[in-house]
């Protein structure tokens, strides 16, 4: 079973159609990249999965999205969906709290009170994002003092701390330098255990490096989806070939 299933999904902003007839499945224990030119609807699709897209005025959708078999469209309690589906944004966002409290922001809300449990969540999540060794001596310092790459890794740790089954990343490296990008790519490939990772990226090299499968979108529609190495070496669709040919010169 796919962790995320998108069925005949359409979205509109006012009367303008954004996504048209999307049918996609995303597997757990793997990374799927969504690529395509700006404005093709990648981010809208991502934000529909955790139902943050509907926070925009005039947003409407049809069709269904299922996370672990349960429809997110019908759920009354949006909070439960967002807990299952973590999200990391393009700009690294750290909350104006200490490093430790950033990680614990979600767990505290969901009722974790035991000190030992909190400490183990902090260490565990920070280790998962390869940040523990860099910050273990200054957990109580403001997170705002971290570098851009560290902030983005902390944002991932904060999302992981509520144990999501799906992790959405919206161009998480676009404001980072190559070294910080490399670190994040490496940790993402190690995070896939029991996790369905969906990453929107502008960077075709990045999709090639880390994604097991890649989806190519154009003008609100899915053009092609396949295993990354196949999609990039022998795409079935003419448009995909055109888009990725930029990659090969």
């Amino acid at each position, binding site marked *: 079973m796919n962790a995320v299933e998108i069925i005949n999904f359409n979205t509109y902003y006012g009367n303008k159609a954004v996504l048209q007839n999307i049918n996609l499945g995303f597997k757990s224990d793997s990374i799927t990249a969504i690529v395509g030119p700006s404005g093709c609807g990648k981010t809208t699709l991502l934000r529909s999965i955790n139902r943050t897209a509907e926070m925009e005025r005039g947003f409407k959708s049809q069709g269904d999205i299922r996370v672990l078999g349960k429809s997110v469209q019908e759920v009354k309690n949006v909070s439960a969906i967002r807990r299952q589906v973590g999200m990391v944004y393009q700009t690294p966002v750290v909350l104006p*709290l200490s490093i430790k409290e950033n990680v614990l922001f979600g767990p505290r*809300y969901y009722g974790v009170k035991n000190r030992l449990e909190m400490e183990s969540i902090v260490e565990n999540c920070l280790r998962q994002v390869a940040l523990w060794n860099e910050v273990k001596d200054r957990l109580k310092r403001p997170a705002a003092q971290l570098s851009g790459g560290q902030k983005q890794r902390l944002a991932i740790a904060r999302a992981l701390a509520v144990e999501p089954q799906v992790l959405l990343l919206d161009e998480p490296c676009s404001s980072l330098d190559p070294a910080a990008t490399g670190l994040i790519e490496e940790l993402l490939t190690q995070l896939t255990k029991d996790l369905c990772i969906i990453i929107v990226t502008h960077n075709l090299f990045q999709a090639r490096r880390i994604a097991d499968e890649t989806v190519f979108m154009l003008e609100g529609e899915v053009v092609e989806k396949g295993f990354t190495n196949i999609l990039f070496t022998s795409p079935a669709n003419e448009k995909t070939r055109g888009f990725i040919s930029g990659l090969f010169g």
Partner: protein
Amino acid sequence: MKQRAVTDGLLMGFFWLAGLFILVVLLAIIAYLIWRGGPFVDSAFIMGSPAGLPLGSEGGIFPAIKGTLWLVLLALVLSILPGLLTAAYLSEYGRGGRLADIINLLVQSMAGVPSIVTGLFVYALAVVSLGWGISLLAGGLALAIMIFPVIVVSTREALLAVDENYRLAADSLGVSRFYTLYRIILPRAAAGIMAGVLLALGYAAGATAPIMVTAAAIIASSSGALLEPVMALPYHLYILFNEHISMNQAYATALVLVILLLLINILALSLHSLQERINSR
């Protein structure tokens, strides 16, 4: 090219002149008050009660200071919770919705109601119909209604100035708006909210019209009893001046009132600039 430089130069000149003009007027008012009222402000004036014939021509203004503090405190107590809740709804819960639009419009209209009208309304409602009489409670209510829109607008602006990304990040964890509000947004906006509340407080302390018909008395002990009339600095000043009781006492009272308001405003401004530094971090 040269002409543009001349235009810019001229405009800068005007800006400086305008700024200087305001500054001169303000300083002139304070200097004049110090010159006319300063010699009469001493500890006996501040700590004493009105005396002499006609009453107020001698003695001090302590009951008026106390009364003004009571009125402002009560106005704050009555308006702060509704004000904060309204602002929190407007910025965190109802933003962009129809209800928020309507509330914004209402608050805007409330801010436009002349304070004497507010005073008359509270007079009709509280003083007469509810039978509170001319009282501290009625005056506090009138001032509370007057400063409510000020508190709503300044608090709303302080909340809205908090980085939107924090809300986005918190929302995507599935936590409630209230949790985000008290853990992130409120602490970030606290200095700005306090600055707004202080400005509203200064506004209430200087207001005369709403208390004239609801709370103020020519002489009262201002003990803090809710259903007793109180003295108040702006009203006392008005009586001293309007009834030609004593210009010296009037200027001295004005000086005390202006110093009180200046202190409040300086505190508010320093909190405001603290908030700006927080926002830019």
